[in-house]
């Protein structure tokens, strides 16, 4: 019999912690074991009580100012010490950039395996956790499992739905383990503009690629986006090569799952496709009839986006008003 038992979830992002609790509950039920959330933060007592209503059996928390800058070493030392003591069989860690670094370092310390960025998690007949993830730049889906325990997996934001709060509350336990000070000194923190809506949550996205000639032409997409209550996105080359934007939609950027994704002048590089594959409906507008984006589109428009998009704006102005 294994000495490891229990499913743990941790993220420095509490929304992501809650999302992982829904999957964590399912895994714990299948393994007939306990689900615990680990919460490490500053001034967290009230939020812990709220978090206790999302399906966990236990919440282990530490309230300490050392966590204020969200640096990895305090989390890492807390998790290493807690996991060495309690021996969970599965640890799900939120796949933020901090979380990815944390998970890899935790796996190194606990001498165990780590599967990053899982979009599907299952328990197989042998009670092993199997995790699916995108590999080879979007060309493949790998199904992997850890041979060693704890089995560590990172889970990207919005992979699993947030569970509904329940009446049953988790057992909230304050813990005190030895913590390491951060090794890096944070000299400056610049928040990302708060006004910028999160494209990962958009229901409709209008996105431009290399077929867009000038940055000003994005005004056209913004007009269409305004009509549809949509957000505007772009591909990596427009951010990286042309420096028009600081971010992009794609495997290495923002992964999105809107109801509708309108790809304008996007050739359809596999990395971009991997970032939009969960969209419900994909429309592609491209001059090139052989553009590979058409292989991944529901509606194919072979045509000049500079003609099609303005026509679509006019049509929708009329349709949406009368409809």
């Amino acid at each position, binding site marked *: 019999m294994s000495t490891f038992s229990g499913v743990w979830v941790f993220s420095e992002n509490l929304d992501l912690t809650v999302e992982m609790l829904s999957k964590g509950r399912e895994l714990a039920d299948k393994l007939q074991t306990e689900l615990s959330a680990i919460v490490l933060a500053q001034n967290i007592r009230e939020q812990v009580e709220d978090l206790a209503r999302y399906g966990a059996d236990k919440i282990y928390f530490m309230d300490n100012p050392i966590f204020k800058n969200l640096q990895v070493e305090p989390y890492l030392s807390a998790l290493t010490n807690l996991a060495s003591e309690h021996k969970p069989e599965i640890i799900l860690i939120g796949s933020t950039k901090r979380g990815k670094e944390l998970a890899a370092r935790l796996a190194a310390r606990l001498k165990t395996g*780590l599967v990053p960025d899982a979009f599907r998690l299952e328990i197989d007949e042998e009670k092993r956790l199997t995790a699916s993830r995108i590999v080879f730049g979007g060309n493949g889906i790998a199904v992997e499992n850890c041979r060693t325990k704890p089995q560590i997996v990172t889970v990207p934001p919005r992979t699993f739905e947030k569970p509904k709060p329940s009446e049953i509350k988790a057992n909230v336990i304050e813990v005190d383990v030895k913590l390491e000070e951060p090794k890096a*000194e944070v000299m400056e923190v610049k928040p990302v503009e708060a006004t910028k809506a999160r494209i990962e949550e958009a229901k409709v996205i209008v996105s431009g690629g290399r077929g867009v000639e000038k940055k000003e032409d994005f005004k056209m997409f913004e007009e269409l986006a305004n009509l549809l209550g949509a957000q505007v996105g772009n591909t990596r080359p427009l951010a990286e090569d042309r420096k028009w934007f600081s971010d992009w939609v794609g495997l290495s950027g923002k992964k999105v799952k809107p109801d509708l994704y309108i790809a304008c002048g996007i050739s359809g590089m596999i990395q971009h496709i991997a970032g939009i594959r969960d969209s419900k409906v994909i429309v592609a507008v491209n001059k090139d009839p052989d553009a590979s984006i058409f292989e991944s589109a529901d509606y194919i428009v072979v045509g000049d986006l500079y003609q099609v998009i303005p026509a679509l704006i006019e049509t929708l102005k009329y349709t949406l008003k009368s409809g």
Partner: protein
Amino acid sequence: MPRIIVCIKYAIDVSQIKVDPTTRKLLTADAPRKISDFDKNALEEAVRIKEKHGGEVIALTASSEGASSALREALAMGADKAFLVQDPALQTADTAAVSYVLAEAIRKLGSFDLIICGEASIDSYSGQVGPRLAEILGIPIITYAHKISLDEDIIVAERSLEDCSEVVKVKMPALLTVTKEINVPRVPTLMDVIKASKKELVTWTLSDLGIQSEKVGAGTVQVLEVSAPKVERKKIKIEGETPKQIAEKLAEALIRDGVLGG
């Protein structure tokens, strides 16, 4: 003057992977390999530091097969020396094992000030080797750096995270992982290539590092299956005489699908 080690993966060129149409399995064994894109950024950054501060740049790779061409390219890009750990056991090595092998090779290389890795590899995109390596060697790490500067024994780095960007500093020796945004890697000239052919390229086996190959091949993670993602899209062509007709047909379809919100 800093001694910098750059870890390079001889990765599968993901743009050239073919799929077996019947089994949907990926034919990765046949795909060509190259220096992983982000590792070129790591190397470029190391060479720029050397150009500014002096010192030495060492390229290091662990691979099961002919990665010497990748290291020759690294030498042409400006590395002074290259070390290749080559062993058939590395064929099945996972990130934990590769990190362990790189760490042993780095110990054999002696003292260093900085290790630079790409943020992740283009083929497996797991981003684990940098952080694991820092843990094994017990040195500080800054991940996802997109701008760095050196001041004596201090590195200052800017990194973009989901909710903010940070400026952080650590004391060397340290490990950095860098993003594609940090620089544009140089393309070696013919002269560089000729010079590179005279530079030192050392090959080690696992036993040269005192590592038993069973320790490397077993792995902590098992890949059960890799297949091409299924694309189930309708692929309906919207055609019309004029852009207006196309727009109307498209709008109708989207309303029918219930994805226009209103």
